[in-house]
């Protein structure tokens, strides 16, 4: 089943889109800084999940190791600060992108030869290898304690703001702009011939191979692209959090990324974005509500998988299709 979202759909929803964007831009004027932190965090996870979904939802490859690219993207600014004394946002972002994308390209090249559960386990092994290295090489990475990430300068100008003012001011706008640009990029990929090829590979890779399309190379592109998204999100996460530690690469976080995609609906473009933001709030409020937050998260996961396997967006879409079918039926009656 292919879900059709063409440019006409975008045009129809343009007013809603503009309202959401404007709302996002005026949030810092009204919301407390903790809410802005949470929203920023949700948006960064949305970037990560959207990138991951190019691999998972679109190409149909279940990776357990996506946290590696997010984590490596977050470690790049920390290493640059500690070992090169570079505190410039531009250099950080570019080096995070290069670092995460290169590692993704290498790991992806090795992994895309395999399918199904073997692909998942291999990506798990590589991501945990990086986790173990960062965890164990204490004298370089300070292990479990992690590394501190200061406020970077922008275009050579240092920013004389307190951390909370920085988060609800400049950093928030950087994150908003970055995520809007990347969401648009993701949308272009989703609707491009390249994206359609990935979706066709998911549906039937043997047929696509017979059409003369190099399936493995396409899978490799998808893997590298997902690493690119993860790297950018990780870099900004390091700055937002002010601190990185190896848990950002742990398989539990990889699993949470899969959860976000399935929660929102991994077959729909908007799914991972909505899933990631919802997941951020769900987890944060469950944690503040009770020490037994895992029970809330776990039982909602079980309920989700059993009752709404298509995720929130999949469910909404089915509902809308049912309604439009009903309308068509009533039209038939009138004519």
């Amino acid at each position, binding site marked *: 089943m292919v879900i059709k979202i063409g440019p006409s759909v975008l045009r129809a929803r343009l007013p809603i889109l503009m309202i959401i964007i404007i709302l996002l831009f005026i949030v810092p004027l009204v919301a407390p800084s903790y809410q802005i932190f949470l929203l920023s965090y949700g948006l960064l996870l949305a970037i990560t999940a959207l990138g991951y979904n190019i691999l998972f939802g679109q190409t149909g490859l279940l990776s357990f190791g996506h946290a590696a690219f997010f984590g490596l993207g977050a470690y790049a600014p920390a290493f640059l600060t500690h070992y090169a004394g570079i505190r410039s946002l531009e250099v950080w972002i570019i080096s995070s992108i290069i670092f995460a994308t290169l590692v993704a390209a290498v790991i992806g090249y*090795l992994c895309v030869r395999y399918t199904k*559960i073997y692909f998942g386990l291999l990506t798990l092994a590589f991501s945990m290898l990086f986790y173990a290295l960062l*965890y164990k*090489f204490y004298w370089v990475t300070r292990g479990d304690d992690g590394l501190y990430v200061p406020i970077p300068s922008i275009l050579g100008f240092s920013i004389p703001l307190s951390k909370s003012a920085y988060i609800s001011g400049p950093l928030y706008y950087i994150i908003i702009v970055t995520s809007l640009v990347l969401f648009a990029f993701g949308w272009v990929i989703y609707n491009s011939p390249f994206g359609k090829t990935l979706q066709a590979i998911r549906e039937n890779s043997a047929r696509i191979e017979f059409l003369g399309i190099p399936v493995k190379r396409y899978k490799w592109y998808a893997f590298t692209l997902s690493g690119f998204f993860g790297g950018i999100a990780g870099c900004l996460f390091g700055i937002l959090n002010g601190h990185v530690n190896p848990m950002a690469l742990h398989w539990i976080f990889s699993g949470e990324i*899969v959860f976000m995609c399935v929660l929102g609906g991994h077959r729909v473009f908007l799914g991972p974005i909505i899933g990631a933001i919802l997941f951020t709030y769900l987890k944060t409020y469950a944690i503040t509500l009770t020490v037994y937050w895992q*029970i809330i998260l776990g039982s909602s996961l079980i309920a989700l998988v059993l009752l709404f396997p298509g995720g929130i967006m999949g469910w909404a879409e089915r509902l809308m299709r049912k309604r439009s079918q009903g309308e068509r039926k009533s039209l038939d009656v009138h004519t």
Partner: protein
Amino acid sequence: METLLFSLFINGLVFSSMLFLFSVGLNLIFGYLGVLNMAHGSFYTLGVYTSMALITMTVLKGPLPIVSIFPLVLVAGVVVGLFGLAVEPILLRRVYKSEHAVQLLLTYGLLLVIDDVCKIIWGLELYNVPEAYYFLGSVRVLDTAFPGYNLFILFSCFALALLLWIILYKTMFGRTARAIAEHREMVSTLGVNSPLFFTLIFVLGIVFAAWGGSITMPMLGIFPGMGLDPLILSFIVITIGGLGSLKGALIGSFVVGIIRSIGIGLFPEIDIAIIYLIMAVILLIRPSGLFGRKEIVW
């Protein structure tokens, strides 16, 4: 140096036994049911807590003599297995035909829930019930002293592995279960209640996970969420050994247990990294593991 290596080897062997019990259950469930059961880790945790509770109630604060620790740790595993009778028909059965992501998320959700139930019942504190560990005293081999309980672990692991082999290969139950895995419709037409067999295989799998926890309980520090470590290690074990292979689980646990022990003793900086590296290399050379077959049937 020799004595150090020898004691590292024995410790590795003990750890391998625990890992074998754990991963053979995981592999059993994957081989027959096709589900990579993330909740396995929480059944291990349940096994640990159940055996702790049983021993505390009946031996440490009760009438039973201390020798009864040994049957009790085995009973604890079977008690945990009873949960499987509910979990498989209610939850797992619904996702056999779903994609892997769905199965993993379901069992991961189950893991989170069971871990928190442990937290609610037993609290967040760290327990230690070493009485059984001290009770057997120590054994001297080659100038090195080992806790006698380690011998019990090795022996019971061997006996349980033998038991599993007999169940799977020498009984009607095992033959039928393998036939179902090979060709389900065909066996069902012969009048076999195949859903029941799926439930029983799942129960058997988690009983082994719980045994991995309950038997080694006296030497562990007990806390909620302790099942995550063996879970991730057993993923390595079954990929090294081969998904869905009994022999693979045995060899894989041995490799991972020994390397982990030697790594911790001699190269503490890179112990875990080496295991992941070996896993990645083996998967790249032989994606189905050392003993795995393309189609997963035991």
